[in-house]
């Protein structure tokens, strides 16, 4: 469903993505792991059309959407959802307006939007009491849940998760991981998550890809990741400073 071929992106002279190739099947929950600064967020932004790649092909379904904003391009055949690293909830709007933002812009009545938003809140484990609060009145974990609610509100075909557990304690992170897994399965959506949290990867992924120096150097299922002798994977999964992945400026 998502196919990326020979994707290149550089900033000035810094090549971030170098002939990157990846294919994610429909219904698959792919997780891209890799060190900070390897281009994970750039890959996601290229997919969303927030950054324009220098060259390559990005296919969603059979359409090449390179450099187009997935939502602007009026690609009505594919709906997407996105959970941002920091939640990216709109400060000026209360929780139910945040969740139902897309419907509110499409002239769906406020009453209907609020009703569906409260149902969505319940799906992500929050009760209706928070509907009228503002993002700043919620804890980090609750904000992530609301953000997840906003991402699944329109029942998307593809959902992107950018570091979904960053900044959360391990228990809340596990709750979010399980919620992601549950909601992705419920919707039957294709999911792409970028993270360096291995426990998150193990919970969410049906397939794991390792991004290193701008390219995918390994990709397989979670069981294979635990068995592999690939030195890059071993170093990353075990969190070792010694290995083929060189640490610069440390």
């Amino acid at each position, binding site marked *: 469903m998502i196919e990326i071929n020979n994707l290149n992106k550089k900033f000035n002279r810094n090549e971030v993505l170098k002939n990157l190739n990846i294919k994610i099947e429909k219904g698959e929950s792919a997780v891209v792991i890799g060190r900070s600064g390897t281009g994970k967020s750039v890959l996601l932004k290229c997919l969303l059309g927030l950054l324009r790649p220098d060259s390559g092909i990005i296919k969603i379904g059979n359409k090449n959407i390179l450099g187009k904003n997935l*939502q602007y391009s009026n690609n009505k055949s594919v709906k997407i959802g996105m959970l941002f690293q920091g939640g990216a909830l709109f400060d000026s709007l209360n929780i139910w307006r945040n969740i139902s933002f897309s419907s509110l812009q499409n002239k769906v009545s406020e009453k209907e939007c609020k009703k569906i938003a409260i149902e969505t809140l319940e799906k992500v484990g929050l009760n209706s009491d928070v509907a009228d609060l503002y993002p700043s009145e919620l804890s980090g974990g609750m904000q992530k849940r609301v953000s997840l609610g906003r991402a699944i509100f329109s029942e998307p075909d593809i959902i992107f998760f950018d570091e979904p557990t960053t900044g959360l304690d391990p228990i809340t992170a596990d709750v979010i991981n399980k919620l992601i897994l549950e909601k992705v399965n419920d919707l039957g959506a294709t999911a792409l998550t970028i993270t360096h949290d291995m426990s998150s990867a193990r919970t969410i992924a049906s397939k794991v890809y390792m991004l290193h120096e701008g390219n995918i150097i390994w990709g397989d299922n979670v069981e294979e990741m635990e068995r592999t002798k690939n030195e890059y994977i071993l170093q990353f999964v075990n969190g070792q400073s010694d290995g083929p992945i060189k640490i610069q400026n440390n």
Partner: protein
Amino acid sequence: MKIFTNVGSSVINFLKETGRFFIFTLKTLKSSISKWYFKNIFQQMISIGYLSLPVVALTSFFTGGALAIQIYYGGNQFNSEVIVSSIVALGITRELGPVLGGIVVAGRVSAAIAAEIGTMKVTEQIDALRTLSTDPFEYLVFPRVIAGIIVLPILVGFADIIGIMGGWFVGVQSLDFNGSVYLQNTEIFLESNDIISGLIKASVFGFIITMMGCYHGFFSQGGAQGVGRSTMNAVVSSSILILGSNYIMTNLLFAS
């Protein structure tokens, strides 16, 4: 050799910035023929206009009063009742009302817009808007710009009245002028063109203030420090552009 490198890089940066602003302006104008978010426009009209009224009113009142004193003591005190009232009225409506009003609103509104949009940029809220099928130019930028263009003339209209009343108050209370004669003289000397020219200027200033706030906020980078820098740049650039464009408009409106 280094001096050429520095000059060259400054010129390139200036051209880059000008080009980026030009594209930003085109996108804003383009969004005017797309979806209008009336609720956002109304909210911005309240925020830019209604909430700026107290500070603009105070500025105008004291400026009108100070102007009256300056004219009275700085000039010939013979026939001063006519001279003070006419110069206060002309000075306030043609120049001081729009310019001081513009500068005060620039400090308040341009900074607030840059800080708000800048924070949205660095916390990925603008990216989130895009992923929710909403064009940030239509949703964030255009409502602020159109609200600024509409509201600034109204604000300056109030500033004109309050500024003239400031001059009248000082004239009557401190300079022993006859209040009704003062107002009669104001009415005689003030022409509709004086007021209209000030309101045209105010509309242009509204565009400048909101565009600078949105532009600098939109390209904020690097967290709190970046947002702070954008806020400062928005206020400085809008203030300079207000003064520069005021000179050009004064030339166009009055020199001919």
